[in-house]
C-alpha cells in the first residue's frame, strides 16, 4: 500500500514539476507569480484533444501541438496584458494573470463545452511488479517529464540562452550593460514556459478528465511546490513538486482521499508562517 502510494506520489510530483518549473522561471525573469499556469494546463489539454481526437494524430504529435499552442498563448498574453502592465508592479501583474486565467478557461468552455472529454488511446494493461500496479499513463508521464527536465536543465545551466536567462533574473540592469535585452529574454521565457505548460496539459489530460476547470485541481499544488522550493529556483521547484506529490498521495494513509488538497494548503500556510524563502530559495520574496 505505502509503496504503491509512494510510486503514485512520485508520478504526481513529476506531473507537477513542469508547471511548477514554468511558474518559477516566469517569476525569476518577470518577478510576478503567474496565476494563469492552471488555465494554461487546461488549454494544453484541449489542444492535445484537438490533435489526438479531432485530427486523429498520435499522442506525441498532439503534445507537440499543445506545446505550440501554449507557447503562442503565453506570447499573446504577454503582448496584450503583461508587458503593458510591467511598470505597475508584481501585485497588479498577479491580479491581471487571474483575469487571463478566466479568459482562457472561458475560451475553452465556449469552444468545447462543459462535458468531460478524454484522449483516444488504446487501453493498456497495467504492469504489476512486486505487488505494485504501474499504469501505462504513469510510465509515459514519468518518461516524458524526466526527458524534458534533463533538456531544460542543460538549457539553463550550459547554454548561452540559459546564462542570459539567469543573468536577467539575477540583475536586469547589469544584463543590459552586457548586451542582454530583457525584452527578448522575457519573450523567449514566455514561449518556453508556454510550451512546457501546454505539454504538461496533455499529461494532465492522461491523469484525469479534460474539462474547463481541470487546471484548478493543479493550481494549489503547483504554487505549493514552487513556494516550497523557493520561488525563482528551478531545482527547488522540481524538488518541491516531488515532495508535494508524495505528501499528497501518502496523506491517504491518514486522511480520507478527498481531503488530499489540504496537504498543499497546509504546506503553503506553514511556509508563509515560518520560511517564506522556501527550502531552496536564496533571495527573500518581497512586495
Amino acid at each position, binding site marked *: 500500500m505505502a509503496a504503491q502510494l509512494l510510486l503514485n506520489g512520485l508520478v504526481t510530483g513529476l506531473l507537477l514539476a513542469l508547471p511548477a518549473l514554468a511558474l518559477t522561471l516566469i517569476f525569476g525573469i518577470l518577478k510576478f507569480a503567474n496565476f494563469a499556469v492552471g488555465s494554461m494546463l487546461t488549454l494544453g489539454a484541449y489542444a492535445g484533444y484537438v490533435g489526438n481526437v479531432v485530427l486523429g494524430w498520435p499522442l506525441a504529435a498532439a503534445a507537440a501541438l499543445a506545446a505550440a499552442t501554449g507557447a503562442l498563448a503565453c506570447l499573446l498574453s504577454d503582448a496584450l496584458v503583461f508587458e503593458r502592465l510591467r511598470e505597475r508592479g508584481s501585485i497588479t501583474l498577479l491580479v491581471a494573470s487571474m483575469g487571463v486565467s478566466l479568459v482562457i478557461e472561458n475560451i475553452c468552455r465556449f469552444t468545447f463545452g462543459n462535458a468531460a472529454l478524454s484522449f483516444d488511446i488504446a487501453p493498456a494493461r497495467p504492469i504489476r511488479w512486486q505487488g505494485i500496479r504501474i499504469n501505462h499513463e504513469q510510465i509515459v508521464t514519468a518518461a516524458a517529464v524526466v526527458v524534458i527536465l534533463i533538456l531544460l536543465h542543460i538549457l539553463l545551466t550550459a547554454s548561452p540562452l540559459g546564462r542570459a536567462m539567469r543573468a536577467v533574473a539575477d540583475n536586469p*540592469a547589469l*544584463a543590459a*550593460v552586457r548586451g*542582454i535585452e530583457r525584452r527578448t529574454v522575457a519573450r523567449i521565457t514566455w514561449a518556453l514556459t508556454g510550451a512546457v505548460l501546454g505539454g504538461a496539459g496533455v499529461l494532465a489530460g492522461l491523469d484525469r478528465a479534460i474539462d474547463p476547470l481541470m487546471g484548478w485541481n493543479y493550481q494549489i499544488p503547483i504554487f505549493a511546490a514552487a513556494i516550497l522550493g523557493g520561488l525563482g529556483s528551478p531545482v527547488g521547484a522540481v524538488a518541491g513538486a516531488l515532495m508535494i506529490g508524495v505528501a499528497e498521495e501518502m496523506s491517504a494513509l491518514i486522511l480520507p482521499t478527498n481531503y488530499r488538497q489540504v496537504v498543499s494548503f497546509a504546506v503553503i500556510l506553514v511556509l508563509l508562517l515560518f520560511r517564506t524563502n522556501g527550502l531552496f530559495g536564496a533571495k527573500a520574496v518581497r512586495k
Partner: protein
Amino acid sequence: MTSEPHLLPEPAPADAALHVTGLRSGYGRGGDIVCGIDLAQRPESIIAVIGPNGSGKSTFVKTIAGLLPARAGRVRVTGRDVTGLSPANRVAAGLAYVPQEANVFGTLTIRENLKLATEFLRGRAGVGPEQRARVLALFPELAARPGTLAGNLSGGQRQMLAFACALLANPEVLLLDEPSAGLSPKIVSETMEAIARVRAAGVTVLLVEQNVSAALRIADEVVVLVAGALRLRAPAGDVKPADLAGLFFGRAA
C-alpha cells in the same frame, strides 16, 4: 571660493577619449540632477570625479553609460557620438561601465560571469582569446577558482571580477562608480592599484569616488561636482583634501 576653477588646457575634442558636452539628466519628472556638464578627457588618463553626497556623481556616470537617458547634451567616445545608443551598444563602442553595487551576477559562477562579459556583445573589435588572456593576467586570483559563485566572493574579489568583466570588452574608456564603496582600507588600496594597472594597460578611466584621498593617489586630474555642475578641474597633485571642504559644503571663503 578658495580658488577659481583651475582649468587645464583640455584636449581638443578630436583626440579626447571621452568627450561630454552640455550633459543634462534626471529621474522621472524631477528636475535636472546633472545640470549641463562639459568634460573632455585625454586618452589613458584617470580623472577622479569627487563631490559631496547627492551632488549627482552617480547620475553623471549612469547617464554617460546610457542607463539613464540624457535630457540634453552629447557623449562621444574616441570621436564617435554614442548618445543615442543603448548601454550594451555603448560597451560595443568602447565605453565600459562598472556600477557601484550589484556589479557581478551573484547567482552565477566566476566562469559564467566572465563568459557573459562578451558573449552577447555585438561588433566590438579586439575581443577574443588574446584579450581574455591579457585581462586574466591582470587578475590571477580569478582564474584560480572559476567554479565559485560570484555571490560568495569577498567585496574586493567581487570588485576584481567586475573590473575583469568590463575589461574583457576591450574598452577605450572605463567608467567606475565608487569602486571603494563598502571595502576595508587595505582592500581599497588594492582596488586603486588595480585601477592604476588598468590605466597602464592603455584604458582611459573616469573614476567616481567618495573616498577622496584614495582617488587622489592614482588620479591625474580631479573634477569636483557640486549640485550637478563641475566646480573645479585641477591636476590631482595640486588638490589637498582639506581645500575641498569649502567647495563641498558651499562655504564662500
